C-alpha cells in the first residue's frame, strides 16, 4: 500500500520509491498470460502460418534467373516500393532477399498492431473499466500494470519470433538470417508497443490511445515509403521510421546489427517517458483532455436515413480508401502483366486460373474485377448485417418505439448499405483505371473499367438482398451470407480447377456476370440477378414487418 500513496508530485522517476511502484508485477503478468492464453496461441499460429504459407514459393526464385529478373523489375516500381522495402539485393534477387524486402513491412505492421492492442487492452482499457481500480487497491505498485503489459508484449513477440524463425529455417532459409529477420521485426513491433504505452498514459480512453498509436504507425509507414521511393535503399526520410530500422539490417543480403540499436534506444526512451507521465498523472485520468462533442444534434440528423449515414460513413470512407489504395497499386502493375505472364505460362495451375487466349491482360483485368467485386461484397454483407448488431444492442427497439415504421427503419439502413456498396465497387474499378493510366497504359480505356465496375452491381444487390432476407426471417442464421461470400470467391477463382458443374457455379451470383472483359455480359443474366435481388429485398421487408423485435 505504501506504493499507492507515494508522493504524487515526485520528480521525474520517483526514484526512491521505484522498487515499490513495481510491486505485484509478476502476479499481474501471470494473470495476463493466463487471461490471454488463447490470444497468444492464435497470434502465434496466425503469423507462423503466414510464414509457412506465403514464403515457400519464394524458393522457386533460387533456380530461375529469369524469374528473379522479372520480380526485381516489378518490385522496383514506386507503387511496389511503397508496399515492400528499400530493395537490398535486387541485382541478384535470391529467395532470402525477396522475403526480407517484401515481407518484413507487413510482419512489422501486423505485430505492431498486435502490440498496440495488447498494451492498451491491459493498461488504459483496464483502467477505464473499474477492474484496474480493484487490482490497484491491492499490493500493486503504480507502474506494475504497465510493466507487466510490456513484459507480456515482449513475451508474445519473442514467442512469435521463435516460431516464425523456425518456420523460415525449416523451409531451407539460412538459420541465422531467418532468426535475425524475425527478431528484428519483433523489436520493431515493440517500438510501437512502447508508443502505445505512452499513449495509454496520455489518453483517458482506450480508443483514443489505440487511435493515436495507429496514427504513429501509419506515419511510420508513410515516411518509410516516401523515403525509399525518393532514393534507392532509403533516404534520410526513411530513417525517421522504426519500420526502416528493421529493414535496414539488410538481413539475408549483408546483415548489420546496428540499426536495431535505434529500436532498443527508442523503446528505452519511450518507457522512461511513459514512466515519467505515469508518475505524474492521477489514476483513471489522462493528460490530454477528452474532446467534448456537440450538445445538440446537427439539423441534418432528422431520421433513420441520416442516422444510418452517420453510422456507416466511417466504415465506407476507410474501406473505400483502403481498398482504393490497393486497387490503385494493382493498376500500376497491369502494364507489366504481359512480361510476368511469360514467366508463369509454363505453370499449369496458373494456366487453369488465367485461362488461355491471346488477350491475357483482359483475363487478368477480369480477375481484378472479381477481386474488386468480392471486396465490395464483403463490405455489403458487413453493412447490411449492421442492423442485427443494432437490434442486439437494443437500439432498434428505441427507434421503433418512436413514430418510425419497420419498413422505414430497415429501408434506411439498407439504402445506405446499398449506396456504400455501389461507391466501394465503382471507386474500386476507377482506382484500378487510375493506377493503370498513371503508368501510361491506355490500351484499355476508362469506359471499360467503369463498365467492369458496374456489371457487378446486380450481383452485389443479390448479396445485400440475401443478407437482409436472412436477417428478417432467420436472424440466427445470418452467417449464411458470409458462407455465400466464401463460395463466390471459391467459384470465381477455382471453379475450373475443381471442374464444378454449372448448377453449382450458378449458386454464386457472380458466376452469372461471366467474364465481362473478354466476352461481354448477357443482358438476360443482369435482369435475372436484378429480379432475384428485388425478390429477396421484398421478402426481407415482409419478414421484418411480421416478426418480433428483438427476435426470440
Amino acid at each position: 500500500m505504501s506504493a499507492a500513496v507515494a508522493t504524487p508530485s515526485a520528480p521525474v522517476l520517483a526514484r526512491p520509491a521505484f522498487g515499490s511502484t513495481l510491486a505485484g508485477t509478476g502476479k499481474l503478468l501471470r494473470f495476463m498470460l493466463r487471461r490471454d492464453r488463447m490470444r497468444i496461441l492464435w497470434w502465434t499460429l496466425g503469423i507462423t502460418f503466414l510464414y509457412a504459407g506465403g514464403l515457400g514459393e519464394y524458393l522457386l526464385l533460387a533456380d530461375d534467373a529469369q524469374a528473379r529478373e522479372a520480380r526485381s523489375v516489378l518490385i522496383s516500381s514506386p507503387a511496389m516500393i511503397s508496399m515492400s522495402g528499400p530493395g537490398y539485393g535486387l541485382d541478384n534477387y535470391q529467395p532470402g532477399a525477396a522475403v526480407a524486402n517484401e515481407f518484413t513491412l507487413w510482419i512489422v505492421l501486423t505485430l505492431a498492431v498486435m502490440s498496440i492492442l495488447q498494451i492498451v487492452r491491459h493498461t488504459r482499457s483496464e483502467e477505464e473499466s473499474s477492474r484496474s481500480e480493484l487490482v490497484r487497491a491491492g499490493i500493486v505498485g503504480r507502474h506494475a500494470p504497465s510493466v507487466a503489459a510490456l513484459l507480456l508484449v515482449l513475451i508474445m513477440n519473442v514467442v512469435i519470433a521463435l516460431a516464425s524463425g523456425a518456420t523460415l529455417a525449416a523451409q531451407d532459409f539460412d538459420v541465422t538470417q531467418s532468426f535475425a529477420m524475425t527478431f528484428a521485426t519483433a523489436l520493431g513491433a515493440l517500438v510501437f508497443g512502447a508508443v502505445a504505452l505512452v499513449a495509454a498514459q496520455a489518453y483517458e480512453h482506450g480508443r483514443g490511445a489505440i487511435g493515436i498509436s495507429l496514427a504513429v504507425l501509419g506515419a511510420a509507414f508513410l515516411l518509410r515509403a516516401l523515403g525509399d521511393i525518393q532514393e534507392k535503399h532509403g533516404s534520410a526520410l526513411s530513417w525517421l521510421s522504426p519500420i526502416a530500422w528493421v529493414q535496414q539490417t539488410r538481413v539475408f543480403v549483408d546483415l548489420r546489427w546496428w540499426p536495431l540499436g535505434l529500436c532498443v534506444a527508442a523503446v528505452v526512451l519511450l518507457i522512461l517517458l511513459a514512466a515519467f507521465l505515469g508518475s505524474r498523472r492521477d489514476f483513471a485520468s489522462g493528460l490530454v483532455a477528452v474532446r467534448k462533442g456537440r450538445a445538440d444534434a446537427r439539423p441534418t440528423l432528422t431520421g433513420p436515413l441520416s442516422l444510418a449515414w452517420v453510422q456507416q460513413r466511417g466504415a465506407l470512407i476507410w474501406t473505400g480508401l483502403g481498398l482504393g489504395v490497393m486497387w490503385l497499386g494493382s493498376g500500376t502493375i497491369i502494364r507489366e502483366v504481359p512480361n510476368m505472364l511469360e514467366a508463369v505460362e509454363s505453370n499449369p495451375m496458373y494456366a487453369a486460373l488465367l485461362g488461355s487466349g491471346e488477350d491475357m491482360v483482359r483475363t487478368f483485368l477480369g480477375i481484378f474485377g472479381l477481386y474488386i467485386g468480392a471486396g465490395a461484397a464483403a463490405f455489403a454483407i458487413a453493412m447490411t448485417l449492421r442492423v442485427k448488431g443494432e437490434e442486439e444492442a437494443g437500439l432498434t427497439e428505441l427507434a421503433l418505439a418512436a413514430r418510425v415504421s419497420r419498413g422505414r427503419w430497415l429501408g434506411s439502413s439498407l439504402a445506405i448499405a446499398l449506396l456504400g456498396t455501389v461507391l466501394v465497387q465503382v471507386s474500386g474499378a476507377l482506382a484500378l483505371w487510375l493506377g493503370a493510366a498513371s503508368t501510361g497504359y491506355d490500351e484499355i480505356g476508362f469506359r471499360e473499367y467503369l463498365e467492369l465496375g458496374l456489371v457487378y452491381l446486380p450481383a452485389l444487390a443479390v448479396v445485400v438482398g440475401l443478407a437482409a432476407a436472412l436477417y428478417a426471417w432467420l436472424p440466427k442464421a445470418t452467417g449464411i451470407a458470409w458462407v455465400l461470400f466464401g463460395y463466390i470467391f471459391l467459384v470465381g477463382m477455382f471453379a475450373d480447377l475443381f471442374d464444378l458443374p454449372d448448377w453449382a457455379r450458378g449458386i454464386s451470383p457472380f458466376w452469372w456476370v461471366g467474364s465481362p472483359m473478354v466476352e461481354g455480359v448477357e443482358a438476360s443474366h443482369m435482369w435475372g440477378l436484378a429480379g432475384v435481388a428485388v425478390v429477396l429485398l421484398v421478402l426481407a421487408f415482409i419478414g421484418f414487418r411480421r416478426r418480433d423485435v428483438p427476435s426470440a
Partner: protein
Amino acid sequence: MTSTTSTAIPAIEIHDLHKSFGTVKALDGLNLTVRPGEVRGFLGPNGAGKSTTIRVLLGLLRASSGSARLFGGDVWRDAVALHGRITYVPGDVSLWPNLTGGECIDYLIRLNGGGDKARLRARKAELLERFELDPRKKARTYSKGNRQKVALVAAFLSDAELYILDEPTSGLDPLMEAVFTEYIREAKAAGGSVLLSSHILSEVEKVCDTVTIIRNGIDVESGTLDELRHLTRTNVTALVGGDPTPVAALPGVHDLVTTAADGGTRITFDADNARIGAVLSAITTLDVRSFTATPPSLEELFMRHYGDVLDADEAAAEAAASANGAPAKKAGAR
C-alpha cells in the same frame, strides 16, 4: 381515477394477453388498464413478464392471443401512429455509441416529429440541468445511470399522452430519483398517463395511483393502493398495562409477540384490516400507554405474492383483481 375519466378511452387496455416464445409462456392471460391521467405501477420481479408486456404494447412483439390497445388503437397494426402519442424509456438504455448524449436526445425527439424549437431548447436545458447530465459526451462513455438520464430527458421533452417507463430509475441515485418523481407528477398534472414498471416499491408508492402486480405472466393483484392495503394487515405495536392474552385469541390477529417492558407489556401483532375495529376495541380495555399502527407497505403486498403465503388470500386477491380490472373486451382475431 375520477369517475369522469373512467368513461374515456383508456390509454392502455390489455385483456387476456398471451405471449409465448416457443414453449415458454411469458404472458399467460394478463389484464391491465391505464386510464387517462392515471399513474399505474407495474410490479413484479425479473422474468415475471413486465418487459414482454411493454414490448407488446410498443408493437415490437406480436401477441399470441388476447388484445392490447393504446388509446383504442391496435398496438401491432397502428403502431407507428400510436407511437406519436407515447414515449418510452427502456430498462437498460443503449444509445448510439458515436453520438453524444445531446445528439441522441435531439434524434429521439425528431423521430417523433419534434415540436416548437425555442420551447424544446429551453426545456432541454432545464432538464439537462435538473438531471445533471453533460450532453457533450459520447454515448459510449456514459455510465448506465447517465444513459438512463438521456432517455428520461428525451421522454420528458416530449409532450406525450402516455409514458411507458420500464424500470426507469434502476441506475439513478436517490437525488435523481427525486427529480424523476417530480417530473412524473408534472406529467400527470398535465394530463398524461403513466405505466411505471418497477421493483423499487417505495418509488411506486410515492407516485402511483394504482398498482398491478404481475407474476408468471398474469396479473395477480390490481387496484388502488388503498384498495390493496384494505386486503392486507396492519402492523400494530402497543405498550399496555393489562394482560394481553385475550387479544391473541381474537380472530384476525396474527403473530402476536409480547415482551416485558418498563411499566407494562409491549405487544406487536398483525391484524386483518377487515377485523381491525374489533381488535381496537379489545385493546382499549388494556390500559394503553402507547400505540402505533402502520399500514401495510407495498413491500408487504409484494412479498405476500412472491412469498407463497396463503392460498385463501390469493383467491381473494384474484377476485379483487377481476373486480378492478378492465371491462372485458372481445379479443380481436389476429
